[in-house]
């Protein structure tokens, strides 16, 4: 109990939890197939100073620290290492400042992403970061993973919205990077380095986010196709030829929409279709929006869409988005033994990747479903353990299937993970995608910030 006693002395008993039932909740995130690990204790700092105290203490005592937001991660980034202390940022959830004139909002890391979206909208502004988990994930977790989501083609991933950070380094020092300016080339861009660093370089304690004007009106198109390749071939054409940049282009195959339908207990239009695409268009007036969706809709009909459904009010838009957002939840609820991947390829190579994913699943007798952010070439190829397959066979087949999937991804000039991160889940495949020198540089950056390797050790880098 020594470590725990010291933590209690440091933070007060109300900010430390160590009873086994509580610890269990912090032993995993939402990643399937990664073994849970019970930490020694979970601490709940309420201020930057407390975070600094914890890290200084841990660095001296050489105790491993695992930062944690809301625990919705899909790469096991917040899964504790052996004998570690989890630092949960959930009580650091204040809105520090809303600066309407500069269109920024400054928040603590524990704020739930959806709350930031709501506050911005109440002021006629818009926070464009929109992971499908926005109702449950924390902004600190979004920053640490450089979360993407459904609006990346138009607005970019989380890194595009982060202007400044306050960070506590593994030594306990408190530093700030960036600020409220929209551009800044005063030295290296350490903000960008920290966004996506998966809690391995420092703990983020404050975030300055950029807001943009709220789109005046939006329409969502739900577009069923008989043939998956036809659907995917549309995407690069729409992007390069239609003259409008949709805010989203999403894809869900038949198995994915069936999963969502089951989770929501609601049927999707044209359930017989092999897949559905979803487009979101934004515009400054109803008239221009109508013109744009009719133009796009007609083009899609020419490109072999079975039908084009158009939702231009909130109720209807939400009806379509609910299907897309329920897929991952459905998988987690109904098929807990699965492997959700996050490969990303240049948009035009998408059809080849998806076709290969079905082929790989067939070869190794696995079930597969494909869904994701096709507008930016990011598909969540998800292998499911078929009923009746033994755990052993599942593990072996999955391993081979993943290797094949990654080989093809490399051939298609793609990458290992587009938004979920490496964490524990994917670290052994890192060298398939990075050159030796790249990996060596990354390791030296880690050493520079965390000489004693106390912060989220064992993540990202292959053992």
């Amino acid at each position, binding site marked *: 109990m020594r470590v725990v006693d010291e933590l209690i002395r440091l933070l007060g008993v109300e900010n430390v939890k160590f009873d086994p039932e509580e610890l269990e909740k912090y032993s995993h995130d939402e990643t399937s197939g990664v073994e849970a690990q019970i930490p020694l204790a979970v601490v709940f700092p309420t201020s930057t100073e407390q975070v600094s105290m914890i890290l200084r203490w841990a660095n001296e005592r050489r105790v491993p620290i695992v930062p944690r937001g809301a625990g919705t991660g899909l790469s096991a980034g917040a899964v504790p290492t052996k004998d570690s202390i989890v630092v949960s940022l959930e009580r650091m959830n204040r809105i520090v400042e809303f600066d309407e004139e500069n269109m920024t909002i400054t928040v603590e890391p524990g704020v739930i992403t959806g709350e930031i979206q709501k506050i911005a909208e109440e002021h*006629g502004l818009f926070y464009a970061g929109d992971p499908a988990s926005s109702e449950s994930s924390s902004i600190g977790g979004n920053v640490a993973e450089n979360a993407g989501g459904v609006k990346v083609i138009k607005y970019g991933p989380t890194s595009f919205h982060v202007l400044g950070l306050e960070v506590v380094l593994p030594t306990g020092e408190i530093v700030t990077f960036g600020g409220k300016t929209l551009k800044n080339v005063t030295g290296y861009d350490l903000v960008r380095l920290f966004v996506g660093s998966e809690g391995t370089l420092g703990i983020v304690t404050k975030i300055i986010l950029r807001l943009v004007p709220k789109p005046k*009106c939006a329409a969502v198109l*739900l577009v069923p196709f008989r043939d998956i390749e036809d659907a995917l071939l549309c995407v690069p054409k729409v992007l390069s030829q239609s003259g409008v940049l949709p805010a989203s282009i999403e894809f869900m195959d038949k198995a994915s929409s069936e999963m969502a339908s089951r989770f929501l207990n*609601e049927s999707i*239009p044209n359930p017989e279709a092999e897949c559905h695409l979803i487009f979101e268009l934004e515009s400054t007036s*109803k008239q221009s929006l*109508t013109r744009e*969706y*009719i133009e796009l*809709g*007609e083009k899609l*009909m020419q490109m072999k869409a079975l*039908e*084009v*459904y*158009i*939702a231009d*009010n*909130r*109720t*209807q838009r939400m*009806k*379509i988005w609910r299907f897309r957002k329920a897929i991952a939840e459905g998988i987690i609820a109904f098929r807990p033994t699965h492997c959700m991947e996050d490969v990303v390829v240049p948009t035009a190579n998408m059809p080849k990747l998806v076709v290969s994913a079905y082929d790989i699943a067939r070869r190794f007798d696995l079930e597969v479903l494909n869904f994701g952010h096709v507008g930016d070439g990011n598909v969540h190829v998800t292998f499911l353990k078929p009923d009746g397959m033994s755990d052993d066979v599942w593990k072996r087949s999955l391993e081979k299937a993943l290797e094949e999937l990654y080989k093809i991804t490399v051939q298609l000039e793609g990458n290992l993970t587009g938004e979920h991160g490496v964490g524990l889940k994917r670290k052994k495949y890192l060298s398939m995608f990075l050159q030796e020198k790249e990996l060596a540089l990354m390791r030296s950056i880690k050493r520079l910030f965390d000489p004693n390797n106390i912060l989220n050790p064992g993540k990202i880098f292959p053992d």
Partner: protein
Amino acid sequence: MNFLVLVKQVPDTEKVKIDPISGTMVREGLDVTMNPLDSHALELAVSLKEKLNGSVTVLSMGPMNTIDVLRDAIALGADRAILLSDSALAGSDTWATSLALAKAIEKLNIAFDLMICGEKSTDGETGQVGIELATLLNLPVVTYVSELIELGSNFVLVKRSIEDAHEVWKAPLPACLCVLKSVAEPRLPTLAGKKTAMDAKIEIYDTESIGINREEVGLKGSPTRVVKVFNTKIARNCRIYADKDILEGIERVVGLIKAVRDGEAK
């Protein structure tokens, strides 16, 4: 078989905000949309029309931006859309609203076998207009309809939901139904539907063309006076059992379950 669906325009928002001083709804900056409950009524009518042939007419009373809502109804399969709009109608309560709508139906001689209303609007939420309208038109009316079982050539058979049971009602046609969500799940409009709606003619009438006496409607014709609007605070007596008193909590819950079961046994 001909259908008349009553649709109201409501603000397109999740949370209705009430101005604490005037006690009226904050509508500024909000888009309008079809009362979500009315879209279930419309779906019921359109799906029945597709099966039985005939036509669907939608009728609404509201400001001019209601045109957008009526176009949406056309995109979803309505054949004819009628708007009753006039500054004299502003401030109408359920009585005045029903009176104006009833006069329009009579004057325009809208033929229908079944008139379908939503359960209630999401803003006014009184759930009165359908019933008052049926009464003024001297039609049989069934409220809280959860399912349409059968539509015959001269009758309609429906399930009506009451607190903890269902009733089955048969009404002669023409009749009025005030329907719950479960009657039909609204479809999404298609591209073709949207295009039809863009060019569709929306018929617009004012009080004069319908022959409504301006004194009978609007604020003047409304016997309802909203004296005060306020948020009711629902205070629940929530007791959390944790740590030391957890066993007491478990006992209490078990006791409650037992009490319910005993009650059911009797």
